């Protein structure tokens, strides 16, 4: 397949809190011959559960403004955040199918000399990796397989739901994300609450962080009941924040200690492709920064020079 380039929609959490994901995806896409173009002047997606809950037309207009940046350049967008994907993909879809909303949005966009045309598509990293690069090519690139490492998954919600609109995977028995993660050679560990929400979305984390963390604890307890895992993989930095930094917050609010390494799927692949953790700063995850700890290198099967 010819090289394909995407506009890289960064969003907020990846560039501002988990920059290791931004660096890792650049390594992974480059290894697979896929281009990532800067999307100059892109803003917040804006957060679908937050802005979408406040005012649908404002939400759609700000999302459409981001889409027009990519339309001007003629390349599709890719994003590694389920929330950004929900805003950009859903807004793109709704604007292409709802003339009334489209007219309202374009009337608003006119004040900044922009117009939504509906000429591009929005891809999650996961879809770009699976559909453009392909699992077999990804497997070829794996030179440091995670053999024997027990891997739990947290697919999150918005890259596959609502299923009738996204028409991508069966949200009750999803397999696409699992198959992508399994290219790393790690062993998939199922657990009962794999498919429930991390708790952060829909403006709940902002409204009541303790309730949000109860979701997170339910997931961890469910995983531990299934025998535990060496790491948990997610395709979303907001879920990653909730599951990773959430462990520090759980300790603070509930005095329960969980220590589980949480990786974004592109961080998993960067490691599997042979990149060193320091090349993208895996140890900068907020869990480690705040606890002054490091990833459990031995469990992850990664040899590190003690510094």
């Amino acid at each position, binding site marked *: 397949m010819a090289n394909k380039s995407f506009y890289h929609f960064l969003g907020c959490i990846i560039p501002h809190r988990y920059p290791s994901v931004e660096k890792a995806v650049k390594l992974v896409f480059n290894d697979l011959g896929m281009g990532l173009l800067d999307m100059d002047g892109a803003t917040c997606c804006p957060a679908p559960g937050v802005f979408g809950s406040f005012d649908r037309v404002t939400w759609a207009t700000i999302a459409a403004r981001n889409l027009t940046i990519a339309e001007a350049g003629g390349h599709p967008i890719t994003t590694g955040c389920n929330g950004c994907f929900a805003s950009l993909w859903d807004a793109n879809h709704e604007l292409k199918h709802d003339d009334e909303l489209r007219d309202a949005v374009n009337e608003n966009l006119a004040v900044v000399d922009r117009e939504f045309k509906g000429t591009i598509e929005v891809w999650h990293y996961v879809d770009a990796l699976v559909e453009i690069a392909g699992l077999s090519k990804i497997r070829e690139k794996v030179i440091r397989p995670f053999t024997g490492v027990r891997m739990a998954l947290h697919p999150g919600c918005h890259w596959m739901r609502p299923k009738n609109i996204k028409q991508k995977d069966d949200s009750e028995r999803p397999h696409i994300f699992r198959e992508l993660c399994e290219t790393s050679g790690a062993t998939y560990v199922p657990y009962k609450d794999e498919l429930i929400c991390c708790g952060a979305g829909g403006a709940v984390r902002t409204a*009541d962080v303790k309730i949000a963390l109860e979701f997170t604890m339910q997931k961890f307890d469910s995983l531990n009941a299934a025998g535990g895992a060496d790491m948990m993989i997610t395709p979303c930095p907001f879920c990653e924040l909730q599951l990773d930094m959430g462990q520090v917050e759980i300790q603070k609010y509930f005095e329960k200690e969980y220590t589980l390494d949480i990786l974004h799927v592109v961080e998993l692949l960067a490691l599997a492709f042979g990149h060193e953790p320091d090349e993208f700063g895996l140890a900068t995850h907020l869990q480690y920064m705040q606890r002054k700890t490091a990833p459990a290198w031995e469990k992850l099967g990664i040899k590190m020079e003690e510094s």
Partner: protein
Amino acid sequence: MSCLITKSSIEFAYITYSRNRILRPFGNGFKDEIQAHLRSRCIILTSAEDKTAIDIDTPDDSFVQMIKKTGGPNIQNCYQCGTCSGSCPAGARTNYLVRGIIRKALLGLKEQCISAPELWYCTTCYTCTDRCPQDVKPTDVIKAIRNIAVAEGYMLEPHQKTALKVLEAGHAVPLDKESWENLREKVGLERVPPNASRYSEAIEEIKKIAKKTGFDKLIEEKKQKEE
């Protein structure tokens, strides 16, 4: 806060427990156990005796029409099966009840719907939407009701602050500390990414859009109310 456990709620729980745990012997201790359980959840519990019933003579249709226009067009498909609430991870731990909210909306109980704080416990995971046999799209209905709540001045303060951040920095989670820039440098990236953190003209555009849609006013009004 005092605990209000009514006789009827205990009887109800007792019957429910009895039905669900048929293998369990019904000793006297069992009733104590239920009472303890109820006490631990007393803030969430309500019963008909605890509050005045709302008289519903003729349902008011105007709220339903408003919801349909605001993003929940399928609300009237609902036949109250409860699959939404049965699937809801927020409902499992809070008094957020999707089915109840939808039924209230269908009965025109607008104020009860938009003023309830639990309206904001939906994480928009869309599990109910994926399972709803009537394609009600409960998540979209809830978001539409939230839109109406915000338009009528019901907005939580932390949400208002998050909205303000987007208007001020272009991002809900901004690059607002030097330590975040240091983190970027540490992983080998430029200190400021090529988004609105770098381009102030992008923030200006967001402000113009918010002014056009009236979103800036929506947040301002709330600010004054809070003060």
